[in-house]
């Protein structure tokens, strides 16, 4: 099972392995030690009272002449038992408290939440002392005290986790299906928060162990004739000048056991936390296919010197558990001054990564390789130095899908825009702010002076997206890369943003790369459209030809799959069978072959090269332009053109 494999990750790190071993030793000792050594621990050696360490008594003896080393070993069971009992109380009480808000509904839940908040604010040790007084001095009182003192913290954790799961749609779906709250709690909520809870339980067991030792040491815990580590420590301290080992032995035991539980919990947390990588399927290493020879590259290079962006053989690679994964596999394209190029493809096609690679935003552990990567003739492959950042900051503007996460919520909009100018252009704050206001006006934000003093949350989604574009315009960009800039916006607002991009482009001759999964949006705004599939460009054609002149079966299927206002209502929509290619499992041959109605034997073995025709259009398909059912056949002259 998958969760099992995730738990196995604990043993991968040396620390995790050591912590696991240590925890196991402690637990085994807790079981075995009293069986084996109780007699040794209770035997009184009256000739050897308060003796120092010797061959017979490794850690010396106490005031009755009992062997402290064996007593420490035997005390493992009681110490661990008490700690675990306290942990169980803390977890159970915490779970009851934490889930009460979910079960009781809104009004009563609020009361529970408030009481947890108050209880959490109490210092734990004070609470423990308080309970110790109420329940009386002794092991039972101490267990209850430590357990209940830990409950509010656990309750708070549970409550937070439950609240996170509660907002998921599958909880709503279960409620709509008529499933009761208790059942939802056990079927949907608890299993999904189990991992962090288990991890925290382990850690708090370590904490309980230490707290116990503390209470016993203060004389509030275990009483004679029973003994745990804290009690031994308490007894040992009084004779520390006679025999230091009598305090050191139980002290070391507390330290080791506490460390064991805490480190074990931490390693489990770490192992589960990084498990996303570990869960990727294991794949065969992939051989890079370099199919575009120099001649073709030259042909697509648009000999004109007006190139804003020139990208050749761009590859983005991430390390995977089964070898490197390459979501972008040799992308070559160029963008001229003032040109609008659309990039379309499904999620996972590598279109966003291509954009990030161009703007040098692919972070570790990703690696970007390219035969050429030039913006305005400047090689971007060079190191990440200040000059390059400044160059990118002023000549390239990025617009992301979610404008809310692109802004710092705690800073005023004007200041965030101005920062670009003070940072990259060395403007003073006053003139930078003036420029910010001017740019906000340029992106048609009304009352820009007032708006500049507002925070991001005071802007609507469309306004934030326009402000984001305005931020890109703080410099004098030659290229705007917009990654799904309108996907999060409503249709009417989408239109405003697209119009804005178009007008900026027209006014300043700025080139635009518009990335979208929506063919219609791209077709409306762009001059040229590049279609990406499985990390490669499979077709590059004028936007005007999208509807009727596309030659790649994938492009044609994409266009046909989107209903527009003229779609025939009596026919089913064209669909693309199968699912997109996982970047870690790119098949041999044409990646689209498995979903393609035209696929032949050749398609599954030989990857078609991206071939350029006389008009500068490119397509990578062995059957480009051939007739397909369901999709309009391309006009004849285009078939010949390939």
């Amino acid at each position, binding site marked *: 099972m998958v969760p099992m494999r995730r738990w196995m990750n604990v043993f991968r790190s040396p620390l995790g392995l050591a912590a696991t071993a240590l925890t196991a030793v402690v637990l085994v000792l807790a079981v075995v030690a009293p069986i084996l050594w109780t007699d040794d621990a209770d035997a009184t050696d009256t000739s050897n009272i308060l003796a120092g360490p010797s061959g017979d008594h490794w850690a010396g003896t106490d005031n009755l002449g009992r062997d402290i080393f064996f007593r420490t070993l035997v005390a493992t069971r009681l110490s661990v038992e008490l700690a675990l009992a306290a942990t169980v109380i803390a977890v159970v009480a915490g779970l009851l408290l934490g889930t009460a808000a979910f079960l009781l509904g809104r009004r009563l839940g609020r009361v529970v939440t408030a009481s947890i908040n108050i209880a959490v604010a109490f210092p734990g040790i004070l609470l423990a002392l308080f309970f110790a007084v109420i329940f009386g001095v002794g092991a039972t009182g101490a267990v209850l005290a430590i357990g209940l003192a830990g409950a509010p913290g656990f309750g708070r954790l549970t409550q937070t986790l439950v609240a996170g799961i509660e907002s998921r749609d599958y909880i709503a779906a279960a409620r709509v299906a008529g499933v009761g709250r208790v059942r939802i709690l056990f079927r949907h909520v608890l299993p999904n928060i189990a991992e962090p809870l288990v991890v925290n339980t382990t850690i708090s067991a370590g904490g309980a162990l230490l707290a116990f030792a503390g209470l016993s040491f203060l004389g509030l815990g275990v009483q004679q004739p029973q003994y745990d580590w804290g009690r031994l420590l308490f007894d040992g301290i009084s004779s520390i000048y006679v025999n230091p080992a009598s305090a050191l032995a139980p002290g070391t035991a507390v330290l080791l056991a506490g460390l064991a539980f805490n480190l074990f919990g931490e390693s489990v947390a770490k192992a589960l936390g990084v498990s996303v990588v570990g869960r990727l399927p294991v794949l065969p290493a992939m051989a890079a296919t370099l199919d575009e020879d120099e001649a073709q590259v030259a042909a697509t290079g648009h000999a004109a010197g007006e190139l804003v962006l020139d990208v050749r053989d761009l590859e983005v690679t991430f390390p995977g558990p089964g070898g490197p994964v390459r979501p972008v596999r040799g992308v070559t394209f160029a963008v001229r001054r003032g040109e609008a190029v659309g990039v379309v493809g499904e999620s996972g096609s590598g279109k966003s990564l291509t954009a990030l690679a161009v703007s040098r935003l692919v972070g570790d552990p990703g690696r970007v390789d390219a035969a050429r990567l030039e913006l305005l003739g400047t090689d971007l492959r060079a190191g990440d130095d200040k000059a390059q950042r400044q160059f990118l900051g002023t000549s390239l503007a990025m617009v992301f899908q979610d404008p809310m996460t692109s802004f710092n919520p705690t800073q005023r909009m004007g200041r965030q825009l101005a920062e670009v100018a003070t940072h990259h252009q060395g403007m003073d704050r006053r003139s930078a702010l003036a420029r910010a206001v001017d740019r906000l006006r340029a992106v048609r934000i009304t009352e820009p002076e007032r708006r500049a003093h507002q925070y991001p949350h005071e802007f609507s989604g469309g306004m934030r997206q326009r402000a984001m574009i305005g931020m890109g315009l703080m410099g004098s960009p030659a290229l705007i890369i917009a990654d799904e800039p309108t996907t999060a916006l409503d*249709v009417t607002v989408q239109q405003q943003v697209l119009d804005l991009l178009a007008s900026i482009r027209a006014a300043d001759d700025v080139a635009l790369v518009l990335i979208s*999964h929506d063919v219609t949006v791209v077709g409306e705004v762009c001059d040229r459209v590049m279609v990406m599939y499985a990390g490669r460009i499979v077709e590059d054609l004028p936007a005007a030809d999208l509807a009727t002149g596309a030659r790649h079966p994938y492009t044609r299927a994409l266009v046909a799959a989107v*209903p527009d206002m003229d779609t025939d209502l009596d026919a089913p929509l064209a669909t693309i069978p199968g699912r997109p290619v996982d970047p870690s499992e790119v098949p041999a041959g044409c990646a689209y072959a498995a979903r393609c109605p035209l696929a032949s034997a050749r398609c599954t073995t030989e990857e078609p090269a991206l071939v350029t025709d006389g008009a500068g259009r490119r397509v990578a398909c062995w059957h480009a332009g051939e007739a397909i059912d369901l999709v*309009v056949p391309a006009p004849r002259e285009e078939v010949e053109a390939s």
Partner: protein
Amino acid sequence: MSDLRFEDVTVEYGATRAVDGVSLTVPAGEVVGLVGESGSGKSTLARAAVGLAPVAGGRITLAGAPVPSRGRHRPLQMVFQDPYSSLDPRMSIGESIAEAIPPGSSRAARKAEVERLLELVHLDPARAGARPSELSGGQRQRVALARALAGRPAVVIADEITSALDVSIQGAVLNLVRELQRELGLSMLFISHNLAVVRYVATHVAVMRDGRIVEEGPTAEVLARPDHDYTRELLAAVPGRHHETRSPR
């Protein structure tokens, strides 16, 4: 007939009125499209119908009686926007669907029903044991549809069910919606901000803005001759409308 009727429904969150006196009918066996921008109250209206949002005024009835929001039988089911959040990642898709089947049937009967439902939404019944993480977004959305159908609903509310999907997958889900409507005579309230999508699946359409319905009628009529300025604005914003060169096939 089991019409779903909203009568003067109002939903308030604190001081804000998300839905303001909406009256709308989903006739039996029809698909009614509900369009509007985010914040127009369309999703809140849907959530109110299934008891996920509190109704402050008016009433919601199904076949003349109030929609039950307690107990196991829920004649109103909902499909959510995000197929990545609407399925429990810990449960197999078969378990998720089985959970929505009204209780009282035997284990074998439930299993058979899950298989039938998976077949209905064109998923291989052998995959009932698969986890949601093994499925694509479109496949998950089909599972969500199957789960909604498992409750044997009179009406299904679909809240932006295709907007989180890739366009290549959206088509398949829309085809499925139309097919289910035709074959099962399913009534549906289909919420979307995409007019082209609503045009394709809905016979009637209602346009919502600021918590109110500003226009409603047969889809073809509303889209061809919109009465309200806002509807015209929405129509003008549909991408692809400016390229009149796009030839109809």
